[in-house]
């Protein structure tokens, strides 16, 4: 009898203990774990917020403004690149500029096209170059203004050589200008994301 009672009490203890242990392991422990995770997440949030506050306090320019400035600069370079890099656009611009200044284009010879010839070591920027030889005829003043427009308003353009001589014959006021130009174009737009990851060293400036 006593053994039966002891066994009954033991079984009840076992059952109750199992239920409690099951409740603890099945319900409370996961809850505790989730609470610990939530606590850690909340603590991480606080740390992040505090760090962001400190960073904000030490930052002179808000990130949006900085990105706007950089984007504007990239757009500016891209536009310049496009202006000097698109052959059709370049042709139209050159002839348009000549006409607007009263200069006749006698010859317009593309000399050669090269990509990556001027690429710096380690640089990811690829620049395509197109060179032209332009023979323009007009008054000295008109040719001067044409030259000015060439070097200042047609994107990434450089006048690499220039020869101005009076035009022989019956037009003593006119000169013949032989102008050698180089037109540069960025192969990839600056606003296109870099397909390769950016190395931390590349984020520093002052490499000019």
């Amino acid at each position: 009898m006593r053994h039966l009672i002891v066994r009954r009490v033991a079984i009840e203890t076992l059952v109750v203990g199992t239920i409690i242990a099951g409740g603890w392991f099945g319900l409370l422990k996961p809850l505790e774990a989730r609470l610990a995770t939530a606590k850690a997440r909340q603590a991480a949030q606080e740390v992040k917020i505090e760090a962001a506050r400190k960073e904000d306090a030490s930052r002179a320019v808000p990130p949006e403004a900085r990105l706007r400035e950089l984007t504007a600069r990239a757009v500016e370079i891209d536009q310049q690149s496009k202006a000097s890099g698109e052959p059709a656009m370049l042709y139209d611009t050159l002839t348009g500029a000549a006409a607007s200044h009263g200069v006749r284009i006698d010859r317009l010879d593309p000399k050669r096209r090269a990509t990556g010839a001027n690429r710096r070591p380690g640089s990811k920027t690829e620049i395509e170059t197109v060179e032209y030889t332009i023979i323009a005829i007009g008054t000295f003043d008109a040719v001067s203004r044409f030259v000015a427009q060439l070097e200042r308003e047609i994107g990434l353009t450089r006048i690499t050589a220039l020869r101005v001589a009076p035009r022989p014959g019956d037009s003593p006021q006119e000169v013949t200008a032989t102008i050698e130009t180089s037109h540069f174009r960025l192969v990839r737009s600056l606003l296109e994301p870099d397909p390769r990851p950016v190395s931390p060293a590349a984020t520093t400036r002052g490499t000019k």
Partner: protein
Amino acid sequence: MLRSTSLCIGLSPTRLEVVVASDRAVVRAAAVELDPTEWEGYWADGLMPLDALLASLMKRVGARRGARAMLYHDGPDATAMLASCPAAGDAALRAARLQAVEALPYPAFGNPVSCSILDRDASGDPPRTHVLAAADRDDRAQSLYGLLVRAGCRPVLIAPMEAPLIAAAARAALDESCRPNDVHMLLGERHTVISAGNGGSLRCLRSFDLGCDLLLEALVRAFHPVGHAAPPTTGERERAREFLHTRGIPDPDGVIDASSGLRGSAVLPLLQPIIQRYVVETRQTIRFGMSHSDLSRVRLVLSGPGGRIPRLAELLSNHLDAEAVVSEDAPKYEPGACSASLRACVERPLPALNLLPLSAEARRVGGVLAVGVRAGGVAAGLLLAADGARIAHHRAALDRLMHANAPIIESIDRAAEIDQRAAELAARLADAEASLAATLGEYPDWFATLRQLAAVASEDVRLLEVTGDVGREGPALTVRGIALAGTGAEGQEPLSRYLEALAASPLTRSVQLTSTRNTVLDEAPARSFVLRAQMHGLPHPIVVAGEGKP
């Protein structure tokens, strides 16, 4: 221990009683007289013959089924004793148990033994603890338990009737007001307890199986017609009990029953041996228990259910040659009421002294343990629930906090993303600007240069060809022209002036005349010349625009 509507049941060879008690007071009582000669038979049959009697008594007192029941009995093997142990607490209880076990006529193992501390006598050296011990055979206890269960009761206590008597006798002796020569004689129905004390300490206590029921039985035999085969009836027993408690020990010449002509001289021979036993037991107790045997100095104080039996004190006094008085505490006989012994059990119960059968006790303990386990389980469950609620509450608070922080975190993440994009763009820009600066290089401002050449030229200096290029030494200008010879108004040659003016230009770094040759210009002497001017190079405007920007 006693609560409202609990039952107290008394069972002795001569009587079965049921009392409904409330707050230690008798509310209702019913009793039935038993034939002592059937006593052994009852036990042999597991007390089943008493089932009907008990059921009828319970019905008479209006006891409900399932009521808590305490049973006091004079079972054949039930025993109680007082053990004075020179120890305290649990040690005294263990010592008393050992003492009781040694005194038992049957093995203690497998039989219920119970001990209860009655009092502590600190005046002695060493101080003693008076422990009331009781024991019974387990099969007897099972029979009693079964009797109660079959009657629909819930047994909570089973104890020998002798135990409350011993306790009462001990308390009387331990009373501070007890006189040194007083010997308390507590006369029960089945047992008599003699005790003596001195200023709060117990000098002696002895219990023996001799009670006033023996006097009652003698009277029943006397009242029963001689030669009558049938056993004495309940009425005869009740009449004999009333006679014993109202008229007591008769005179030899006194008429007991006028109708039958029964006289005292016929009854006294039946009573005398019993009285003699009382005398002998009392004398021996006093002789061995007291420090002196001079009975003349002893005052016998009679109490208990048989204390007020008329002429008993007088007879004892005469036989013992000692003063005998009846205690004021001795209960008065009330016909139809419960016995004084059972009333004492109701009024002064001994809850710690319990001789429930071991199986029932084990069941009870098991039940208590099971209840404890369940209560513990419920408590643990509640704790788990409370802990769960606490965690949920904490989690909810954290969730609220994180929810409140979410927009801030979102803006931080957005800012970080913008930062990342800006850093990437800045890197691409820096790389592109550096590449452009290297590629575009530094060139002279050709327009300004042409303008400058035109500005410094005059009628005296005519330019024939202007060639510009960018050589190894940087941008350079080669100018071929003709200048008039001779000095002008300023006393300087036009070519010299032209060279000076060209050198003074901010566009020019240096001017060098590479060749001159005399010639004629408009029929005037002149010099054809070739000069080479090193020009300042300028970065492309797009590179200049990028400087100083983030």
